C-alpha cells in the first residue's frame, strides 16, 4: 500500500486522526530543521521555528487551500517564521547589492557573465567543518532574499514553480533571482577566497 500523501495526512489530522499529525511531523521535521538552520545559522532558532511552524499547521490546518500542495505551504510558513526570527535578531549585515545584479530585471548583470571566471576551491586543504563554516559565511553575507532562494533551490531541490508559490513571486522573478543568487554566491566566494586561491595557476 502506498504511504498516504501529505495532503491526505493533513485531511486526516483535521478530522481528528491523532497519528496523521505525528506522521507529518516525522516526515518533515528534519528537513525543515535543516532548512531553517541554514537560514538562521542557529540550532536553537531552528528548533523554535520548526516547532512554531508545526503548531501553526496544527492550529490553522483548516485554512489550508486543498488545491495547493502541503510541502511548499509548510516551507512557506517556516520561511516566514525564520524571517521573523532574523528580524528580531540584530539586523543581518547587509552587503550593498550591485543594483543590476540584485535586481529582478533582465538587464541586470548576468549570472552567466560571472561564470566566465574560474571558481577554484580556496579551501582544498581545510577540514570539512572549516569548509562548511567558510561556505556558511559566504551565504551569510548575501541579502536574505537571495540566500533564501539559493537554499530552497540547492538544498531542498524545489522547482521554480514551487519557489514561486512559496515566495509569492512570478516565475520570471524566481529565475532571475536565483541566477542573481548563484552569481553573487560565486562572486563572494571568490572574494573571500582571495586572489592567491583564485588563481588556478
Amino acid at each position, binding site marked *: 500500500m502506498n504511504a498516504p500523501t501529505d495532503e491526505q495526512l493533513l485531511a486526516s489530522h483535521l478530522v481528528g486522526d491523532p497519528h496523521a499529525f505525528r506522521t507529518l511531523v516525522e516526515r518533515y521535521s528534519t528537513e525543515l530543521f535543516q532548512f531553517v538552520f541554514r537560514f538562521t545559522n542557529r540550532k536553537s532558532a531552528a528548533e523554535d521555528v520548526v516547532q512554531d511552524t508545526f503548531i501553526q499547521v496544527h492550529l490553522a490546518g483548516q485554512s489550508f487551500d486543498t488545491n495547493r500542495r502541503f510541502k511548499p505551504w509548510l516551507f512557506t510558513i517556516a520561511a516566514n517564521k525564520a524571517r*521573523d526570527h532574523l*528580524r528580531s535578531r540584530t539586523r543581518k549585515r547587509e552587503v550593498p547589492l550591485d543594483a543590476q545584479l540584485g535586481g529582478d530585471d533582465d538587464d541586470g548583470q548576468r549570472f552567466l557573465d560571472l561564470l566566465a571566471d574560474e571558481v577554484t576551491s580556496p579551501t582544498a586543504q581545510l577540514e570539512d567543518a572549516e569548509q562548511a563554516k567558510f561556505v556558511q559565511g559566504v551565504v551569510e553575507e548575501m541579502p536574505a532574499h537571495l540566500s533564501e532562494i539559493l537554499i530552497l533551490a540547492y538544498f531542498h531541490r524545489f522547482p521554480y514553480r514551487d519557489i514561486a508559490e512559496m515566495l509569492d513571486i512570478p516565475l520570471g522573478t524566481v529565475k532571475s533571482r536565483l541566477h542573481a543568487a548563484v552569481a553573487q554566491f560565486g562572486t563572494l*566566494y571568490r572574494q573571500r577566497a582571495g586572489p592567491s586561491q583564485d588563481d588556478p595557476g
Partner: protein
Amino acid sequence: MIEDNIIPYILGTLSDSEVASFEATLSTDAELAKKVDAARRTLAPLDAWTAPAPPTTLVDNILIQAATTTPLEFVAASASMSPTDAQSAGRPGRFRLTELIAAAAVIALMVSLAIPGVRNVRSNQLQTACKVNMAGFGEGILMYAEENDGSLPNVGPSPNSNWLSDPNRRHLLPAVRHRLVLPKHLICPAADGTIDEKATMKNIEAFLRRTDLPFWAVPNANGPVPKISIRINVPLAADANPLFQEGRFRRGANGTLTPNSHTHGGKGQNILFNDGSTRFIKTPILDQNDDNIWTANDIDEYQGTEAQQSATDAFLTP
C-alpha cells in the same frame, strides 16, 4: 530560454521531457556545455555546507505542544456539544429531568468558559496574522532599500501634496510593482479580511489610495525618509491611526486622543520598525521622549500637510 534551465538541470528539478530536450541541445552546443560546467563548479562548494540533525526530542516536543494547544475549530466544536452527545449509553434518547438540567448547566458553563477563550484565540490569531503581513511589508521595503542605496520609499509633505487626499502610501507603488511588497502585506485581516491579489495588482494605484487600508505608511519627514541605518527604533508603519479612524482630524477638546488603534479592539497596535522588526505594542507612546506615534508634536488639528516636528517625532499618516 535554454540558459534558464542550466541551474534546474544541475539540481535535477527539470521534468523528464525538459531534461531530454536540454540534453539534446547540450550534446550539440559546446558553449552551453561550458556554461553548465562553470555553473556546476560555482555551486559545488555548497555541498560542503552540511546542516546538523535536529535534537532527538524535537518530534516529541512538537507533539506535546500540539496536544496542549487546541485548534479553534475543536474548541468551538466542544462548546456546541449537544445533550445527546452526553447521554448515557444504556438509555439512548431518554433523559430524566434532573439529568437534563444538569446537562444544561454543564453546557452553559462550558459555553461561558469557552466563548471568551474562542474570542481571545481568534483575536490573537488575527493580531498575529496582521503582524505577519506587516512583517512581509517590512521585509519588502527593506529589500527595496537594499536595491536603492539604503533609501526607503521617499515620502513627506510638499506644497502640492496633501496626505489626506493623496496618501503617502502612493510612494510604495514601485515596491509593489516590483513585487517586493505584496498588496496582502498592506491588509490587516483583523480589519479587512483578505483581498484578491491578482485583481488588485491590475490597479495598484487605486488600491494604494484606498482610504480603509489599515497600515498608515511611513512617517512624514522634512525631506526624504531617512536611510534605514541612521537611527534605530524608528516606526515606519502601524495599524490604522485612531485619529483618522474616528473620522475626525483633531484631538479632543482637551487634546486627548483614543490611545490605541481600533483595529485590534483598542488593545494596542502592530508597529513596524526600521530594523524590520514588528511588535505589538499596547501604547502609542514610544521611548523616553514621550512621543505619540499618532500625532505630530503639539499639533491638535490636521489638514493633511502637517509633518513631524523634529527628527525624533514619529507621525504615522495615511
